[in-house]
């Protein structure tokens, strides 16, 4: 498999890029679970306000599919791993999502993943 081609597709969220993203995120799961258990859950209002920041590039409710992909209705575990990966070990070819994901806590990223996965496309 040609790794260079694979990673260059990652920012466009192609299935092959996803695979690579998933592999990188597996290592993170152990480290982040403990933190999640000790932090009070985010309120629904809080998650909504966090999610509203995503709409500026992904459209209202994350549902706008253009050159930047829609995020609504995608599986929570996939979104979660992608976001955590952007934050902790962004795939080569990432443009801006690494810089943005670093501004959120892991809990917030997981809450956002869950929020957008529950929105119908």
């Amino acid at each position: 498999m040609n790794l260079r081609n694979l990673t260059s597709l990652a920012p466009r969220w192609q299935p092959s890029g996803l695979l690579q993203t998933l592999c990188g995120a597996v290592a993170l799961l152990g480290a982040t679970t403990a933190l999640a258990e000790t932090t009070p859950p985010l309120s629904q209002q809080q998650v909504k306000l966090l999610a509203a920041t995503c709409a500026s590039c992904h459209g209202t409710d994350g549902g706008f599919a253009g050159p930047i992909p829609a995020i609504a209705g995608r599986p929570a575990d996939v979104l979660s791993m992608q976001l955590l990966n952007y934050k902790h070990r962004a795939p080569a070819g990432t443009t801006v999502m690494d810089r943005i994901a670093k501004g959120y806590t892991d809990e917030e990223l997981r809450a956002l993943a869950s929020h957008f996965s529950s929105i119908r496309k």
Partner: protein
Amino acid sequence: MQHNQPVLDNISTPTAPSRRRFLHGLSAASMLPVLAACSAPTIGRAPAGRVVVVGGGFGGATAAKYIKRANPAVDVVLIEPNKRFHTCPMSNLVLAGERTMDSISHGYDELQGTYGVRVVHARADDVNPTARTVRLSTGTVLEYDRLLLSPGIDFRWNAIEGYDERASELAPHAWRAGPQTTLLRRQLESIEDGGTFVLSVPPDPFRCPPGPYERASLIAHYFSRHKPRSKVLILDAKDNFSKQGLFQAAWKKLYGDRIEWVGLSKDGRVVRVDAARREVQTEFGTIHKAAVLNVVPPQKAGFIAERAGVTDASGWVPVHANTFESRLQKDIYVVGDATIAAPMPKSGFTANTQAKVAAAAIVASLDGSTPAQALWVNTCYSLAAPDYGVTVAGVFRVENDKIISVPNSGGLSSANADDSIRRTEAAYAQGWYQAISQDTWGTPRPA
């Protein structure tokens, strides 16, 4: 007691069924000049209160929509003079002949039809924060429970000697998109090959910090194809500018010596403009002759902010960080370029995210709950050429009632990125514009 319903001149009728019937009954009363309001907001059919939003740009349109999304029972009236709003983002592509004015214009159909916002095409002329009223250019007076101002910028005419509103008809600013954009485009098209485009840039703070340098880039791109002997001269009142390293590397690579930048300490600050002769004089007396002269003047908050008493001595608006409520007037919220929100830049993107924070705070204040913790994002896309994009991103939170940039987040595109990354960021710039236009005005994807 029946809650008094508003009476508006020239109201545009929303198509939402619940609103349609209600507005129908208004016609007999619509001659009344005063928009009576929520004097007893807890009684009657609309107990959620009334919010008046002034300004239909990135901040105001987003705020109106997100208030309605959070609580459709809140009565939201949006005041905006223009039926179509032209954005500054992407207007530099219009100047370069790469986009049409129509492609950067947006309307209010979604706000009215989908969300039941009542859009009034008038100018807000005055605010009385004690009586809690807004007076419109039509003579109508609107009462509010909460006021949200997203007035954008006004220009400090004559801050540069000789540069006033009349001079801008000869030497455009084009720093508010619309007729000024069209005027500057026409001038660029008719420039003689070999003529110089001179761009005067103000000191901080001003709307869209990387905007002048994107403009210089895209005009150089236009020249390289259509006026091969023409050059771009930037006269700057600063010694450093946004994305400087990225822009200067791109200029060298894409345009050779076509773009010249003169900073403050090299006599870049323009102090006098002769618009008729298209001449500028800089601080140490140098005269520059332009074929096309573009002066971006120093700025301040839009005038309605002054009328509302929310500006300070700087001419900008201090706000409480977590809510964007004015620090000077209760129940008046201000978002967008008019505010003092550093380290957030004055951008359409931040206006959009500030509006969501203010909308949540307004809805919470009307129902007596505590607003969520604020968080904002910004990504400023700039095009050094239509297929060459660079960004600066930021994530912002509140610490001790101050806005801070989250440590280790955000920052610039890599200086070492290859052409494919620059192309991808240019494509995402277009994608961002489509998405935020959908989020703000409901503008559908271009066909």
